[in-house]
């Protein structure tokens, strides 16, 4: 564990003889063991993930309400989404989740090269996902399938309900939810690149791989949200 020279701000050494007998430069002095430190970080990450579930959950509840309000218009609006593209993105994200978990396993078993390779594949998958999304979004911009009063698509079969346009409402939710999810993918790419660089420097090993594990949890949550977004938007008619 002498490979790490960075991350000095977390280095507890300098506290000198606190009697804990640290042998790992990542070991912060207020934790008894590395394991306790790891578990504590993980609980914090899970609490954050719970707030993410509630953040997206609010949007899902709103989507459900509006679907109950405009059932016919939502059914018709969803025909504008291309199922094959949604399915392709689902497969891409699932594969990226697998490469992520293999990356975590590589970090835990001291396989530095494998860790970096798996992380790079994960980033590539994320880029493919965003590329497909870009294609889908630009197609919808051209057709005028836009949120709220920006909606200019013609050829709708059903008129407005009480003056409210269910198509526009559908696309408001579509862009809000897939957009927020896309922002999470972008953040994920930045995090993955960060741990890939650190992993390449050899900063992670079987006794310290907390950042890899926590970024992995985040990445799986992004995948998990898409697992619900995909059937709700692309499949249910």
């Amino acid at each position, binding site marked *: 564990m002498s490979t790490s020279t960075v991350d000095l701000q977390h280095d507890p050494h300098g506290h000198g003889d606190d009697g804990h007998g640290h042998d790992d430069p990542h070991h912060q002095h207020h934790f008894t063991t*590395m*394991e306790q430190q*790891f*578990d504590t970080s*993980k*609980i914090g990450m*899970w*609490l954050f*993930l*719970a*707030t993410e*579930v*509630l953040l997206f*959950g*609010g949007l*899902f*509840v709103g989507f*459900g*309400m509006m679907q*109950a*309000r405009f*059932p016919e218009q939502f*059914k018709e609006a969803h025909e504008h989404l291309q*199922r094959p593209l949604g*399915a392709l993105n*689902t*497969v891409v994200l*699932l*594969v990226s*989740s*697998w490469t*992520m*978990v*293999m990356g975590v*396993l590589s970090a*835990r*078993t001291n396989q530095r090269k494998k860790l970096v390779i798996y992380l790079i594949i994960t980033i590539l998958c994320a880029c493919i996902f965003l590329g497909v999304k870009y294609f889908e979004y630009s197609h919808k911009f051209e057709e005028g399938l836009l949120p709220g*009063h920006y909606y200019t698509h013609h050829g709708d079969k059903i008129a*407005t309900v*009480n*003056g*409210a*346009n269910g198509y526009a409402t559908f696309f408001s939710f579509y862009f809000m939810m897939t957009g927020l999810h896309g922002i999470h993918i972008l953040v994920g790419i930045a995090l993955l690149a960060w741990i890939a660089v650190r992993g390449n420097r050899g900063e992670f090993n*079987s*006794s310290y791989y907390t950042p890899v594990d926590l970024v*992995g*949890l985040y990445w*799986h*949550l992004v*995948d*998990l949200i898409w*697992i*619900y977004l*995909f*059937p*709700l938007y*692309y*499949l*249910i*008619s």
Partner: protein
Amino acid sequence: MSEHTQNPKAEAAVYLKTLIALLVLTGITVGASYIHFGSGAANVVVALTIATIKATLVALFFMHLLHDKPVNGIIAVAGFIFLGLFLMFTLLDFDTRENPLPRNLPGVVTPPPPAATTPAPAPEHH
């Protein structure tokens, strides 16, 4: 952190099986969306059941909840329980309203209130 490092190969095999199961379930849910199960609600139930199975697989294996300390699983489940409460009370409210859309939404024409159920208050001054 050390409870499941004994056999990395066995662990990798579990992850690969999980991925295959997830891909198969994706195929099933896409296929099922082309079948009409009697009613629209039935299709929703089928799609969301498969999605929940997939999400459970991701949480148990990819997110390690199966072999993890129970506290992380409790936090995850608690998040979904509160989401369920939110959904339940929202639906209770939604189902008992005549017009669920807010009256100040632009372009919304609200139906006139039921006539003469409550007489307009005309307070008299003495």
